[in-house]
């Protein structure tokens, strides 16, 4: 099927439109969005295997030849990310059905989630830099709706700040695209890559590379630009937070990965060492935050920042091994962060508060929840049989291979401290003497635990079955190491 890369964008888009006609019938909203997300997963799984079999798939919209029309490109990296995104959205929808109050779900909740899926899948699939900006806006506007839905004073306060930061970064994105267009004169990413290699004019291109770093860094929360994240992510309800933590920052990371491997791969020098330095600073800041706070949600929020730093360090080294590690870790981190947020959401539902001091002794009443959390925590830290291990191993080995010793050391030390921070939730929440729980969602634990266990099972399978996943990752890294594969796949029809 020639239009296959379009389907993961079109299905949620049509679902979102369809759901607008049935805003009063909640059961209809639930069933339709549940089934359509299942269909999206099926399609993206098929897409992954098609890309595996046939190489990079491209769709030129309106049959305009490649540099002139908009091209959608599904290489293995974007196909894998689309699959992971669809999986996560599915689990979050399943979880929200019981977790969120009916009042909350009634006000266009599922529609906003579907449009978020449209935006994220589109941003992963597009092959046009301005189109990427538009898809960024699609998921950002959905995220504005989701973060403020409910309208509590804290949500209003923090979403004002979230909105302001993103408006500024969007304006910067437009300016950066304008500068790039002024120099290169094209918007198609493959064409830009080809022409940048031809003109070979490092000065102004380094400026544009740093502007892209600022733009995507604001979305992805890297070191000096992470300041908005801890406050904004504290306020939305947990399923929404799981979506944000797993997807939104990772789109920024994908933006950096794509632009730095495709556009600016020729001048490995100042900009890549800048990226590396900022990535290491991001890890350190994230770890400090995760250790300093005594709030279960905040610990995980700071762990998002740590993971962004680890992935970007892998990107900055730019060897084959480190890029493989970065892609491996990116997929792992999306899955495990969502799982951890959903698990902590259940704990908050039981205890009625996200502060660690209001929890305790939960293992007595909820052993299944406790041990699932334990596995997820080990997996986040990268203990060998689980999924975090291989990614970090490859990143560290890639770093050492490139002659850097400080970076790998910081990555390894961060694992230890990340383990300490998430184990604090385990120790303070599950061990000790049971406290009186005041949460209103205690009775729902039996229904909520099913999606989280399934999600943790998937991450465990991802770690244990790394041998089976490896060929896909290798294929995903090919166009990152050698942009000419990407360029040829896109411009062949032209």
């Amino acid at each position, binding site marked *: 099927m020639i239009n296959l890369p379009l389907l993961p964008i079109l299905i949620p888009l049509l679902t979102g439109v369809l759901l607008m006609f049935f805003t009063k019938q909640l059961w209809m909203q639930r069933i339709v969005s549940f089934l359509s997300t299942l269909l999206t997963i099926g399609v993206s799984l098929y897409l992954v295997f098609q890309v595996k079999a046939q190489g990079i798939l491209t769709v030129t919209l309106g049959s305009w030849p490649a540099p002139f029309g908009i091209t959608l490109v599904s290489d293995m990296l974007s196909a894998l990310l689309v699959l992971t995104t669809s999986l996560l959205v599915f689990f979050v929808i399943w979880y929200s059905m019981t977790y969120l109050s009916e009042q909350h779900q009634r006000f266009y909740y599922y529609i906003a989630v579907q449009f978020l899926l449209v935006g994220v899948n589109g941003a992963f699939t597009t092959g046009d830099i*301005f189109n990427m*900006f*538009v898809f960024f*806006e699609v998921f950002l*506007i959905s995220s*504005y709706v989701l973060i*403020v839905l409910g*309208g*509590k*004073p*804290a*949500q*209003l*306060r*923090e*979403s*004002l700040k979230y*909105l*302001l930061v993103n*408006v*500024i970064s*969007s*304006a*910067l994105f*437009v*300016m950066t*695209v*304008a*500068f790039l*267009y*002024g120099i290169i004169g094209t*918007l198609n990413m493959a064409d830009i890559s080809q022409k940048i290699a031809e003109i070979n004019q490092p000065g102004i291109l380094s400026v544009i590379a740093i502007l892209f770093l600022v733009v995507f860094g604001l979305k992805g929360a890297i070191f000096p630009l992470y300041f908005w994240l801890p406050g904004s992510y*504290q*306020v*939305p*309800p947990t399923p929404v937070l799981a979506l944000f933590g797993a997807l939104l920052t990772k789109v920024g990371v994908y933006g950096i990965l794509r632009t730095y491997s495709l556009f600016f791969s020729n001048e490995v020098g100042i900009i890549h060492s800048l990226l590396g330095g900022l990535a290491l600073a991001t890890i350190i800041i994230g770890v400090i935050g995760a250790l300093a706070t005594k*709030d279960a949600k905040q610990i995980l929020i700071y762990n998002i920042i740590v993971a962004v730093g680890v992935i970007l360090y892998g990107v900055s080294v730019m060897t084959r091994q480190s890029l493989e590690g970065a892609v491996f870790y990116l997929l792992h981190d999306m899955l495990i962060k969502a799982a951890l947020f959903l698990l902590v959401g259940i704990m908050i539902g039981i205890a009625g*508060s*996200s*502060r660690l001091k209001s929890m305790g002794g939960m293992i007595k009443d909820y052993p299944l929840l406790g041990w699932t959390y334990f596995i997820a925590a080990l997996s986040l830290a990268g203990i060998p049989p689980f999924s975090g291990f291989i990614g970090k191993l490859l990143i560290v080995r890639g770093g050492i291979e490139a002659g850097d010793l400080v970076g790998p050391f910081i990555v390894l030390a961060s694992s230890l401290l990340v383990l300490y921070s998430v184990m604090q939730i385990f120790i303070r929440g599950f061990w000790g003497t049971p406290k009186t729980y005041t949460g209103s969602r205690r009775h729902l634990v039996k229904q909520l635990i099913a999606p989280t266990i399934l999600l943790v099972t998937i991450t465990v399978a991802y770690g244990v079955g790394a041998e089976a996943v490896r060929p896909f990752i290798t294929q995903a890294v090919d166009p990152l190491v050698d942009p000419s594969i990407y360029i040829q796949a896109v411009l062949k029809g032209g």
Partner: protein
Amino acid sequence: MEIIMAIAAGILTMCAVYLILSKSILRIIIGTGLLSHAAHLIVITMGGLKTGAAPVLEEGVTKYTDPLPQALVLTAIVISFGVTAFFLVLAYRAYQELGTDNIEEMKGTDTND
């Protein structure tokens, strides 16, 4: 001509940054408006301001201005319009709920939802 446009966009950005760093929400929103104006001017300018006919196909015209930046700017305008409308309503609602439009006073005591 491009230099004048660049200076104009620079002044707009300067005013936008000054307004965004102020305390009142409304001033901040005016600042974001100016910032998107600056961005749109930059898009138009970077496409080149060479003289030519409006990009509409006509008999006997051989030279047109670049139509692509105009399409880009049109897209960016409606997006920033939508976001600004949302921002204004959000500011109004926040003013009703929190009773202040001073961003410095928007500090939480309730850290948990």
